[in-house]
Structures are given as structure tokens and as C-alpha cells.
């Protein structure tokens, strides 16, 4: 958990169970097939989940009057592109997307690296005070974002970092969740014997980390990277304090668009669509992995 993102976005729950019964349970449970009602209910939920996103595209191409018509419109039309163009003029969404890619990319790389290093140490190395430090990490997950922002704001104001991307990147690198996630994964996935084998083979501690730990940790690192990127892309609270619409991330630009004096809902919706689409495309492509990662994290936690 970064200090600057809300807690529920990443935390993993506590139930744990060995992987063997889990696999067995999964296979066996499948025997009970879903009836038509189940499919209908799930279909409805899926529709409700996706509809607001689709509606963004519809609303982005209609005037208010058209939207209020009976029956309401359910297909976007060509005005969509006109409105996207207008949104891009009203708010620097292109710049925002570039900024968000940079910010979320840096945060992801840094977080995964720090988390893997620390998670490995907490999972497999014994050093004085390790339990207390891990407790500190876990405790951090409960701390609300609000608790850090005033001093951080003062800090970046003094460093004259307001409106600079590093003001968003650096504080968000601290991910207690990432450390905890990697620790949970490595405690299970990395047998002590493997580390001992590396020691017997004469590998130094650093060599062991790069040649043995990182390859084993790679699947969890990928999951953590996806979740971190998503969270960083969607992060809202700290960016709207640290940045202005002069040099925004996507969320800051959207907040500006929504909170500004743009009279036309369609333009706001068009901006929302453009700002959301990149991450949604990534999500659809990697959806299966992200789902797997969240569920894996749930059981591991």
C-alpha cells in the first residue's frame, strides 16, 4: 500500500489454505453446474458492471436534449469524435495520458523492485528486528492517505516540486502492500532448500537474489506490476494536490474537466472516455491474469 492510495484497492485478505486442497476443491466444485438462473444473474451483473463504461461513449456523442429523449439513445454516433476533439481542447488530456504513463510506469518499476527486495528479506532472511519491521509494514496499510498529505505538500512546496511528476512518483513508491504481497508469495514459492543449494553452489547473497529469487518471484512480480500500474494510473487524492491542470495526470485532468465550467456533459464524457480507454484496453488484454493475481493474492494472504 502506498501511503497515498486508498487502502482497499490492494489489500489481500487473510484466509490461507494449502494449495493442494484448494486445487482439489476447485476441481470438485465444478461438478455442480450452473443453472440458467445463475447465468442470467451473472449476465445481469456483468451488464451492470460494463454498462456505465459503455454509456460514457454514448453520452459522449449526444447533446443533453438527446440524452433525455424517450427512448434514450443506446448507440454512440459520429459526434463522439467531434466531442473528443473538444475535450482535448478543454483539458490537456493528451499530455495527461503521457504523464500518467510516465508516473504509473516509474511507480510500477520502483515498487516492484523495492517490494521484491524487502519481501524476500522478510520471507527468508532472519535479522534482528525483522518481525517488528514487518509489523510496521503491515500497520502502514491501515494509515489513511490523509495522514501524510499535509507534510508532503509542505515538502514538495519547499522543494518546488508542485506540478512536477516526481512529486507524485516518489511518495507513491512506498507500497506496504507490495512488500507484504511479495513476502507472502516468496514464503511459499521459494523453498529454503533452493537458497541453500545456491549457497552450496557458491553464489553470493546478491547473486542468489538475481539468479534464484527473482526468477522464482517473476509471476508474483508481474501480478504486482499490473495491480500497481492500475492503482497508480487511477490514483486521485495525492495527484490532485501535488499537480495542477497545467501538468496533470489523467485523473487530475478529469477532475479539472468535471469540476470546471465545461457546460457540455458530452465533452466531459468524451474526456472521461479518452482518459479511461488506455487502461481499460490493457485491462481487457490482461484481464485474466489480473483476475488470477487478485485471487491468488487473496488465498496467499
Amino acid at each position, binding site marked *: 500500500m502506498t501511503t497515498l492510495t486508498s487502502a482497499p484497492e490492494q489489500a489481500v485478505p487473510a484466509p490461507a489454505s494449502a494449495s493442494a486442497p484448494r486445487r482439489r476443491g476447485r476441481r470438485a466444485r465444478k461438478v455442480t453446474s450452473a443453472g440458467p438462473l445463475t447465468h442470467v444473474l451473472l449476465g445481469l451483473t456483468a451488464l451492470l458492471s460494463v454498462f456505465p463504461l459503455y454509456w460514457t461513449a454514448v453520452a459522449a456523442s449526444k447533446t443533453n436534449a438527446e440524452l433525455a429523449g424517450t427512448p434514450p439513445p443506446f448507440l454512440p454516433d459520429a459526434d463522439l469524435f467531434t466531442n473528443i476533439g473538444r475535450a482535448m481542447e478543454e483539458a490537456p488530456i493528451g499530455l495527461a495520458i503521457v504523464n500518467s504513463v510516465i508516473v504509473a510506469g516509474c511507480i510500477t518499476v520502483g515498487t516492484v523492485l523495492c517490494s521484491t*527486495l524487502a519481501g524476500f528479506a522478510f520471507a527468508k532472511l532472519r535479522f534482528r528486528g525483522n518481525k517488528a519491521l514487518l509489523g510496521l509494514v503491515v500497520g502502514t496499510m491501515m494509515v489513511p492517505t490523509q495522514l501524510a498529505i499535509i507534510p508532503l505538500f509542505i515538502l514538495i512546496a519547499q522543494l518546488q516540486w508542485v506540478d512536477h511528476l516526481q512529486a507524485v512518483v516518489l511518495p507513491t513508491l512506498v507500497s506496504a502492500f507490495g512488500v507484504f504481497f511479495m513476502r507472502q508469495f516468496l514464503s511459499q514459492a521459494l523453498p529454503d532448500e533452493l537458497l541453500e543449494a545456491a549457497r552450496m553452489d557458491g553464489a553470493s547473497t546478491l547473486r542468489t537474489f538475481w539468479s534464484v529469487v527473482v526468477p522464482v518471484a517473476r509471476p508474483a512480480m508481474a501480478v504486482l506490476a499490473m495491480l500497481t500500474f492500475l492503482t497508480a494510473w487511477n490514483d486521485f487524492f495525492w495527484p490532485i494536490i501535488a499537480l495542477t491542470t497545467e501538468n496533470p495526470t489523467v485523473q487530475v485532468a478529469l477532475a479539472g474537466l468535471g469540476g470546471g465550467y465545461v457546460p457540455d456533459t458530452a465533452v466531459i464524457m468524451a474526456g472521461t472516455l479518452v482518459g479511461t480507454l488506455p487502461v481499460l484496453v490493457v485491462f481487457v488484454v490482461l484481464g485474466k491474469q489480473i483476475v488470477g493475481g487478485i485471487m491468488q493474492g487473496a488465498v496467499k494472504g
Partner: protein
Amino acid sequence: MTIASDDPRVAAAAAPPPSAPPAPATAARRRRSRLTRNRWGYAYVAPFFVLFAAFSLYPFLYTAYISLHEVRLSDIDGAVFVGFGNYTELLQNEFFWNAARNTLTIGILSTVPQLAIALGLAHLLNYRLRGRTFFRVAMLMPYATSIAAATLVFAQLFGHDYGLINTLLEAVGFDRIDWESGTWTSQIAISVIVTWRWTGYNALIYLAAMQAIPNDLYEAATLDGASRWQQFLHVTVPALKPTILFTIVVSTIGAVQLFGEPLLFSGNGMTSGGVSNQYQTLGLLMYDQGWTNFRLGQAAATAWTMFLIILVVVGIAGLIARRRARAER
């Protein structure tokens, strides 16, 4: 076992058998080599903790310091010590109690349906399904949507004159509702946004926990004549209790900090949370104090109060978990 050696204090304290006392020099040398190896642990956690100290620990403490002072955003160096003045002022401030009440009601309105629906969905997803991955990914789409985007879309959907929801209500014979201006209606609308974003995520968490339940339990329940619904009540839900407790804690922590949705729901970026503060949450109030009224001391006190509320919630959950664990022993 670990690749680093064990705690040197304990090993050194352990009495060597009388038959073979190690030479003092040997012992000293050994202790040193152990320490060297142990230090690697610190090296690995160092990057994290350096960042942690700079961007988490220091700010937490500094916020506590600020909360005891009267500080204006325009004159940060001119802090005046006021003791717990900010806190007592806060407790006498009707805006604080209003925000606390709103946070509580929105928290309940969003958390309870969210987790209940998630549990039901997880149960459905646990059946053998065609298009399993499709359903799971579709349900997680809201999670991938940012607060800002989700709120803007829902603000449109809940709009008075042009919103789809009112259009539909009118079509089935109801009056249009002014969602934004009413206390309950605005809080329900905001809760809907939160529920929409988080239900699928929680459903996946529950699903993962359900799949960890050994199938023997269901087989035994079937042999005992339990119906599917009874199995859900008497096998699934009890096994999920730790997970449910956990999600309640996590959702509550999120609810206490609720900020983006009420900020953007008004459509004008106002920190007041509606004209009569009908949906101003603690998170919004804190932002309002600090960045609209420039009273950082007040804002810091609000932030610490929020943290204390979270601590109480987590503490209660911890007590429940511990009592359960003891009961099971």
C-alpha cells in the same frame, strides 16, 4: 530455516557443553561472521524503509505535530502551539459531526450491499460456468475504472434533467429525483458508485476463499442431507468468516477515507459536499479545511481523528478474530 544464521544473541547465550568449550577467540570470530550475514536483511529492506521513512513515517509524525498547532497554508513557518485545541475545536464543530455522520451512513450504505452482493456473486461464480473468465473480467472492469471517471459517469447517470436513471424512472411512472440535492438520495448515489467499483473485486476475493474450502465438507454435508442453500449457510459462510471480517475491515478503512466520489459528484469541484454539506465526508472536510480554508492544523487534527477511527475499527476486528481463534482452539 533461513539462509542467514540465527539470532547471534541466543546462540551466544546458549551454554556450550562442558566437554568442549570453544575458545573465546573462536566465539568472537563466529559472532562477527554471523552479524555480517544478518546485515544482508537490512540491505534488502533498506530501499523500502528509506522511502518509507521519508514519505510515510516522517509525514505521519509531522501531521501529528501540525495537529497541535495553528498553521496557515500561507504561513507555514508561523505555527503557533495550541495543544489539543484543534481537536477540541473539531469536536465542537458541527461540520465535523455532520461529516462524521455522512461518512458513517455512506460507509454503511456502500459496504453492506457491496459485501452482501459480492458474497452472492462469488457463490454463483463458484458453480461450473461457461464463460467463467468473461464473467470475472467483466465484474472487475469497474475496479479498473478510476474514481474520477466512475464518478463523472455516474454524475451524468444520476443527473436531474438528462440522467438516464431519471429518464427510466419517469418512463415507469415515477417522478424525477433530484439526487444531488437530497441528503439520502445523494448519499445513496455516492454509495452506488462505491458499490459499483468494489463489488466485483470483493466477489473475486470471496471466490478465492471459497475455492480453498475442501470439497470433503460439501460431500459430508450432502450426505447429511443439507440442501445447497443450507450448505451455503452452514459450510461456505462459516469457512469464509475470516475473509468476510477482513473485507469488512478493508472496506471500512476505504469508507473512512472516502474523498474522490463526493468531491466530483457535485459536478463543480466544490469541497463542501453539496450546498448544505449533505454528502461532505471526513476526507472531504479535511481537504476543505486544508486547501479551501488553509487551516492546516485543523486539517491535520481531522486526519489524525480519521486514523484513530480506523484504529478502533481494526482493533474491534482484531478482538473478534482473536476470540474466534480462541473459540476454535
